[in-house]
């Protein structure tokens, strides 16, 4: 029933507007009886009302509009000419329609209004019989509505009640003989039936009819509760551009407010001013909310089209589908609504085409013949969550995985490390479509990757969940609005930048002074181990080519996620979070590509908004970072050697062909350094080197493994191993050269074993030995480990070096 009410109230709003226009047009018509344009406009209006009322089964309204339309058609076609009698009849019609609409609005039904007199009057005009009879009676009452009409037009909003009250005495006076209660319930029942053949009593009714309409009209309008706003008064149509402008201005106001608040907060003790600023703060906040509401539309505006889409698709694909919708009233910004239209439609199509099985298959699987497609929308922590779920066959991660590997979307090795949920998300990867056969419905190139791209373009996210045999759910998270967004402000090189909060995962402060091992260097790229996962670090100052002004020894890292990658953005300082209004950059600056726009901060200064996607792409483009990214995503399961996922390959002993390759688990490597051979000192029987205020014991791998050492080198390549669990104590492993960083899962292991080695493998066509790091350290000085056996038992790789 809700839907019906909506339709009726929309109909009411539209009709009231049209009637106001009609009043104006009819009066204008009397001045310019021949105007085709006006006649056409009037005709259209009445035609619309007739059509809609017929559809809504409002028979009285329809009957009045129907005869009116007939009359107007003749006028329009020039068969009849406009004269005062005709005008009266038409105005009477307008008043009757208005009265009927009033009833409809108040009671939800047409009520007991008698429309016959009006119908008869119009018919009389149509038959040409009204002229003589009505002419003498008409002028007086006819003048009233004509005069009144402009009043209603000039001030339609507050006036109706007043106008109707004013009209009542006038009409009562003029139509005294006819102004008997035109209410007869029994008669009313058949009013519609009468309408068609009512022209018989027309001549007799004509004099009364001429006056009668004035009576029903006030009856409809004068009675209603005057505090209740009518449908026409409670809503207006506003140009979207006006709203956009308002939105923009509100954004400016919010900025100005921020500036004032900041100034007041820091500059003055004036209590009144502070109070005024607080009020401004509140009001601006509410205004922003209010204006935002004006742009909000229920998601139903989008969903309304979907039942048809589902029905047609179901028929085409031979599916029986029931569409359930939950949370139709959930509102979001209209621009966003527009933006999710295509992705949502695509998801629905997908669900019907690929998700829900054919009825026979469903029955075979013990499900009801009819599949259920469920759309659900709700607000959740400042976002709108839209779910598209079906109870179909679900998505099998194994099928997705196999298909993804076949299409080269992902490698088998990477796939093996992925959780089933992660595997499902592969359907959003570019170049992926699960449709076994390209159908008319989907698989035409507009894949799920496009859906993902579109959703991400508006700052949203999409994920898919599925239980094989039970169904699939696609979940979209969309921001409420685009115009204002929360952002983190940071500084770098003396300038402030805004980082969209949507990309921000967490903030990490690293005290590198206290623990130099926190940031490790692999292949020239700094990384930080965030809860065991390698996080590539990107120094904003380096990207921007400015000098960092951060305190030395401290790193402030904003952990950002973009396009499924995580990286740490090292900034000078984090300021705060604020709501920013996004401004476009001038054409001259678009080429930089690292900024998605600019904004004006609380103090009036301009700050650039970082484009995190572009930043990630740009900063992580280097090979090392690519590798780290790979290792970061697959750092969990061990493999046959138990050495971890990534291997640092180093060469030792001699040069060229005689060089041996040693692989060291990357997990253990914190930094690669080059130290002058002259800095090596001897303490007792051991070699050590001073390094960043620490004394590192040295393990010369070539000697340890019995390789041929090149003694003439002036610089030593050192692989620094630091164990954070032991307070970052380190050991320096001297190698000849660093060769590469490789993925352990691509390595073939053999069983060849030797002193100090765990095994060997072929890496880059060379046999490479796996170093047993713990054994190497032990060999350098077994006494290091004597007092921490417990630790070593727990972790074979823990190396604790004390009392160097």
């Amino acid at each position, binding site marked *: 029933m809700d839907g019906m009410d909506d339709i009726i109230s929309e109909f009411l709003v539209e009709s009231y507007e049209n009637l106001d226009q009609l009043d104006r047009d009819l009066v204008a018509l009397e001045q310019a009886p021949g105007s085709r344009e006006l006649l056409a406009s009037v005709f259209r209006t009445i035609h619309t009302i007739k059509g809609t009322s017929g559809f809504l089964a409002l028979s009285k309204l329809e009957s009045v509009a129907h005869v009116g339309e007939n009359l107007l058609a003749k006028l329009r076609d020039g068969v009849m000419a406009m004269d005062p009698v005709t005008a009266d009849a038409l105005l009477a019609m307008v008043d009757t329609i208005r009265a009927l609409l009033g009833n409809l609005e108040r009671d939800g039904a047409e009520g007991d209004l008698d429309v016959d007199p009006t119908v008869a009057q119009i018919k009389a005009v149509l038959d040409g019989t009204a002229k003589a009879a009505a002419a003498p009676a008409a002028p007086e009452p006819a003048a009233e509505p004509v005069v009144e009409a402009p009043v209603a037009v000039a001030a339609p909003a507050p006036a109706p009640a007043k106008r109707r009250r004013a009209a009542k005495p006038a009409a009562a006076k003029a139509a005294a003989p006819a102004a008997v209660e035109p209410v007869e319930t029994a008669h009313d029942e058949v009013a519609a039936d009468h309408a068609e053949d009512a022209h018989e009593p027309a001549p007799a009714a004509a004099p009364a009819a001429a006056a009668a309409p004035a009576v029903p009209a006030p009856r409809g309008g004068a009675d209603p509760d005057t505090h209740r706003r009518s449908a026409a008064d409670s809503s207006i149509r506003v140009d979207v551009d006006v709203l956009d402008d308002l939105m923009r201005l509100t954004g*400016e106001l919010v*900025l*100005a407010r921020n500036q004032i608040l900041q100034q007041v907060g820091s500059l003055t003790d004036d209590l009144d001013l502070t109070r005024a600023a607080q009020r401004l703060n509140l009001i601006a906040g509410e205004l922003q909310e209010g204006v935002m509401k004006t742009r909000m539309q229920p998601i139903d505006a989008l969903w309304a089209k979907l039942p048809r889409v589902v029905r047609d698709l179901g028929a085409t694909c031979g599916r029986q589908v029931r569409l359930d919708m939950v949370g139709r009233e959930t509102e979001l910004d209209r621009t966003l609504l527009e933006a999710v239209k295509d992705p949502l439609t695509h998801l629905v199509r997908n669900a019907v085409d690929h998700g829900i099985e054919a009825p026979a298959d469903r029955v075979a699987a013990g499900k009801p013949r009819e599949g259920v497609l469920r759309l659900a929308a709700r607000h959740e922590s400042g976002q709108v969550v839209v779910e598209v779920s079906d109870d179909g066959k679900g998505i099998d991660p194994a099928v997705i995985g196999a298909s993804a590997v076949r299409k080269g979307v992902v490698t088998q090795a990477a796939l093996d490390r992925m959780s089933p949920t992660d595997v499902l998300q592969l359907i959003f990867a570019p170049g992926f479509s699960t449709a076994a056969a390209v159908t008319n419905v989907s698989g035409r190139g507009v894949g799920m990757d496009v859906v993902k791209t579109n959703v991400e373009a508006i700052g949203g996210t999409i994920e898919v969940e599925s239980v094989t045999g039970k169904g699939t759910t696609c979940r979209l998270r969309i921001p409420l609005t685009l115009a204002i967004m929360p952002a983190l402000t940071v500084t770098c*090189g003396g*300038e*402030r930048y805004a980082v969209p909060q949507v990309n921000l995962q967490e903030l990490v402060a690293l005290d590198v002074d206290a623990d130099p091992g926190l940031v490790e260097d692999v292949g020239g790229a700094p990384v930080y181990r965030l809860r065991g996962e390698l996080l590539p670090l990107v120094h904003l100052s380096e990207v*921007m*080519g*400015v000098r960092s002004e951060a305190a030395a020894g401290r790193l402030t890292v904003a952990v950002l996620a973009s396009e499924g990658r995580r990286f740490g953005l090292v900034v000078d300082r984090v300021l705060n979070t604020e709501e920013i209004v996004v*401004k*476009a*950059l*001038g*054409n*001259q*600056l678009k080429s*930089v590509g*690292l*900024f998605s726009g*600019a*904004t*004006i901060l609380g103090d*009036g*200064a*301009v*700050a*650039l908004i970082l484009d995190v996607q572009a930043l990630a792409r740009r900063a992580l483009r280097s090979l090392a970072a690519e590798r780290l990214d790979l290792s970061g995503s697959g750092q969990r399961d061990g493999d046959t050697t138990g050495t971890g996922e990534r291997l640092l390959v180093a060469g030792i002993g001699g040069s060229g062909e005689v060089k041996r390759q040693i692989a060291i688990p990357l997990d253990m490597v914190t930094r690669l350094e080059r130290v002058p051979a002259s800095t090596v000192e001897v303490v007792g029987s051991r070699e050590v080197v001073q390094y960043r205020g620490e004394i590192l014991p040295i393990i010369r791998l070539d000697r340890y493994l019995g390789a041929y050492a090149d003694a003439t080198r002036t610089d030593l390549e050192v692989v620094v191993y630091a164990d954070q669990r032991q307070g970052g104590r380190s050991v320096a492993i001297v190698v000849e050269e660093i060769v590469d960083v490789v993925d352990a899962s691509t390595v073939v292991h053999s069983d060849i074993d030797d002193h100090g080695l765990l095994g060997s493998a072929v890496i880059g066509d060379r046999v490479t030995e796996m170093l047993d790091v713990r054994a190497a350290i032990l060999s350098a000085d077994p006494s290091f480990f004597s007092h921490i056996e417990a630790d070593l038992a727990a972790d074979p790789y823990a190396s604790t070096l004390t009392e160097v």
Partner: protein
Amino acid sequence: MTTTTAVAPSRKAAAAAVPTTQLLTFELADHLYGIEVDQVQEVLRSQKVTRVPLHTDAIAGLINLRGEVVTAIDLRARLSLPARPEGQDAVNIVVRLRGESISLLVDSIADVLEVDDRSFEPVPDTLDGDVRELLRGAYKTQGRLLLALDVDRAVTG
């Protein structure tokens, strides 16, 4: 292309009875430059400029013009002139081009001059190649040469 259209009005004006052009003149490294008055939106004293990294020196940064973010172009850098001495504040001439506001940083504002179009001459050959591109020509005013800036080219590039 754009240059010809920009110049056209003044040529037309030259053909008319009073062949003059109104120019807002300004100083840049002891030279007098001018831009047509109807291109100028407003003149502002020194504003706080937010630098934009990774860009040419000619782009001084962004300024906040009553809530609008406007790109500021340093004409000294654009015209390959030495950098403005420390401590000397620039003046913003905000021009409006194709619906976009752009600020030009100059040393100081001089007068609005009504110049005789007959005193107009193309860019002197002695000028450096790059800079020539950015000038429409020169007006020979009393005692001083007034260089007419081609705003369109000065802001693109």
